[in-house]
């Protein structure tokens, strides 16, 4: 049984000499892992769901917006939706298109494609920041009012014609206080402030994806750095590092989170950073274990003997082989980051009002009313559940794919 982890990654661009002994072209290790992971039905469905959530997040301002896409009022055409795009919206759209392009065109090397996408993002952001002027004082109900006055000749609305910040001031009536149960106009009902839940759900996809990725990226970076250092330089570094790891793992994570968030504020980016900073411990442990195993291998001695600088030895030689457990824990990490954010929102420490995350919507489900608003619990609850489940299943599949003892070919 060959251990997949021991082979070095082969760049995809290098031409493959025809192998006499194998009947299929050899693929890079990463490629093999990905194929094995998504061989199962559960992992495939999870991937579909994750992509779905991602797409909904990217296209959110076009899917749920009070501003119509095209409107003709009193004879003049305009596109309020396009005018209201913020730099973030534009950057995400451009990034998405470029990623699609990059996935299609296999001719250029993978590194170049990644660089193109990654490089285009800040450029787009800067350009749009200086050229776009989205209105800062939108009055969301004006289009509905104009329609009632009969001044609208033609209108093309988004599928969900409500923004999350639209508190439906024109639909207010004393006899029917918010929150409203789902009906034909509001498919998932409204929350207690009066904003449409469906649009919240759609826009919250962005927040969920962002939290997942940014938080686990931070966890990954810190974990790799600390774990790598501990694993490579054993001795004092390891001793102190293990104490630090123990400290962070002995305090229940939620306490640490609470302490940080209660102190440092409720900005969404800060919460992402905090979740990242409190969750790196497991990654560090895995990396350390792998490094301890690998540092005695011949290829490491060879690299050191040929005089390569330290960072090259660690990051280009040992690290790619230590990736296996990291893939697993990253997937679980995204899931747990989303869960932590929901928990924080539930405890009242969530992000700002106006743009809610799924967890925040959950918080309002059993609000003071004592009346249980099932649509505030079921829809966001199901969204959180499916997303977390998807990441967990993918993590499980990756773990199964990587574990040599569980592979069916022996």
């Amino acid at each position, binding site marked *: 049984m060959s251990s997949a982890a021991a082979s070095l990654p082969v760049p995809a661009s290098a031409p493959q000499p025809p192998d006499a002994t194998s009947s299929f072209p050899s693929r890079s290790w990463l490629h093999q892992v990905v194929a094995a992971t998504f061989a199962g039905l*559960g992992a495939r469905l999870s991937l579909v769901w994750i992509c779905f959530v991602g797409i909904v997040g990217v296209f959110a301002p076009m899917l749920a917006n009070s501003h119509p896409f095209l409107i003709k009022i009193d004879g003049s055409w305009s596109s309020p939706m396009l005018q209201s795009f913020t730099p973030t919206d534009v950057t995400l759209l451009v990034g998405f298109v470029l990623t699609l392009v990059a996935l299609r065109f296999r001719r250029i090397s993978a590194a170049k494609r990644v660089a193109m996408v990654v490089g285009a993002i800040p450029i787009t952001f800067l350009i749009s920041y200086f050229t776009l002027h989205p209105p800062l004082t939108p009055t969301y109900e004006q289009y509905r009012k104009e329609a009632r006055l009969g001044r609208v000749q033609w209108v093309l609305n988004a599928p969900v014609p409500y923004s999350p910040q639209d508190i439906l001031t024109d639909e207010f009536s004393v006899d029917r206080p918010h929150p409203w149960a789902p009906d034909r106009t509001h498919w998932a009902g409204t929350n207690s402030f009066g904003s449409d839940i469906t649009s919240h759900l759609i826009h919250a996809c962005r927040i969920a994806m962002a939290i997942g990725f940014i938080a686990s990226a931070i966890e990954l970076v810190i974990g790799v750095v600390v774990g790598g250092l501990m694993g490579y330089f054993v001795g004092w570094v390891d001793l102190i590092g293990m*104490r*630090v790891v*123990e*400290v*962070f*793992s*002995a*305090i*229940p*994570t*939620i*306490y*640490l989170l*609470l*302490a*940080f968030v*209660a*102190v*440092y504020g409720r900005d969404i980016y800060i919460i992402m950073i905090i979740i990242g900073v409190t969750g790196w411990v497991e990654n560090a442990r895995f990396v350390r274990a792998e490094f301890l195993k690998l540092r005695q291998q011949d290829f490491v001695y060879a690299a050191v003997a040929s005089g390569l600088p330290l960072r090259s030895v660690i990051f280009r030689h040992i690290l790619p082989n230590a990736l296996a457990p990291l893939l697993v824990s990253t997937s679980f990490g995204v*899931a747990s980051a989303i*869960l932590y954010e*929901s*928990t924080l929102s*539930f*405890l009242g420490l969530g992000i700002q009002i106006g743009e809610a995350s799924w*967890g925040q919507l*959950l918080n309002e*489900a*059993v609000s003071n009313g004592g009346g*249980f608003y099932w649509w505030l*619990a079921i829809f966001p*609850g199901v969204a*959180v*559940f499916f997303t*977390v*489940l998807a990441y*967990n*299943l993918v993590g*499980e599949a990756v773990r199964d794919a990587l*574990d040599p*003892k*569980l592979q069916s070919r022996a």
Partner: protein
Amino acid sequence: MLTYVIRRLLLMIPTLIGMTLVLFVIMAASPGGVGASLRSAEGNMRPEQRREIEAYLKHRYGLDQPLYRQYLRWLNHVSPIGFKDVGPGWPASLPFGFKAVDLGESLQRRTSVLSLVEEALPVTLLLNVLSTPLIYVIAVTSGIYAARRRGAFMDMASGVTLIALWSLPVMCVGVLMLGYLANKDYWQSFPVGGLHDTVSDSMAFLPHWIGGHFQRGWLLDTLWHLVLPVVCLSYGGFAFLSKLMRAAMLENLAADFARTARAKGLKENVVVMRHVLRNSILPLITVGASVLPSLLGGALIVESIFSINGMGRLMIDAIFAKDQELVMSETYVIGIVSLLSLLVADLCYALADPRVSYE
């Protein structure tokens, strides 16, 4: 073995210091500082009055001193070896030796931390002590079951179900349970919260019948109040342990000693239960140690939802009130509990596996 235990106990000390230092730094760096919590209780008062009160409280609790001094002072209080009779100041020439551990006084509630912890810790421990065996029993059973039917539908189904349970957010489930199972409008099978009934003080201990009417005794009443919280606390832990059990079992089922046992003619049942099981349980013991901190964390949410006064609630209130003494002393206590359980788990491991020794 003894040297190992002593070494581990000594290594606990820097970890404990690290833990409390981390929390102290977070609390101290907060805007408004620690004194802010003292102000929140006071309502409309004249500013001179408020300043007087703040100065009085700051002096009393030593908050007007530089941060490192505050931390060292607290450290001195809680360590069994230290300077005796140290007040808000730092006298240099006092006798150094064994002394009583003083967990300090909560700033917000003005009672000793020890009495607060005394009340809260047994409650949380009770929740955890009831949850842990439940988690283990279900995890072990389902792990064995899944391993024996590997690849079959039941294996996959149980795997997915457990992961699904793991993915359900605790507060969603807790709130739903409260909403449906404890609600007069739906099924009122369980109480809303707390640990005891209003009239529990005058209840007899054991259940009995009075005049044809069933009376839940105090014991049964407490257990009844505990059902929902324990369920909420434990359902998330099944998946992880079950997966681990399954993986270990699979590894051992294919091992040489199992093959030998089958070759000897033993029934499959006996092979699994008597030989394979024992070897597969080892990873669960090591992991079991880290289950406790996560249970302590999970208890926080459960205690919030069900209004149970345990360590979790105490911690939330303390952090929000920026009650420095309480936060640090509570972290200290939780740290001791967690680290001791880690040590116990390691010792159990050595006991269970004769191949392992710590010399």
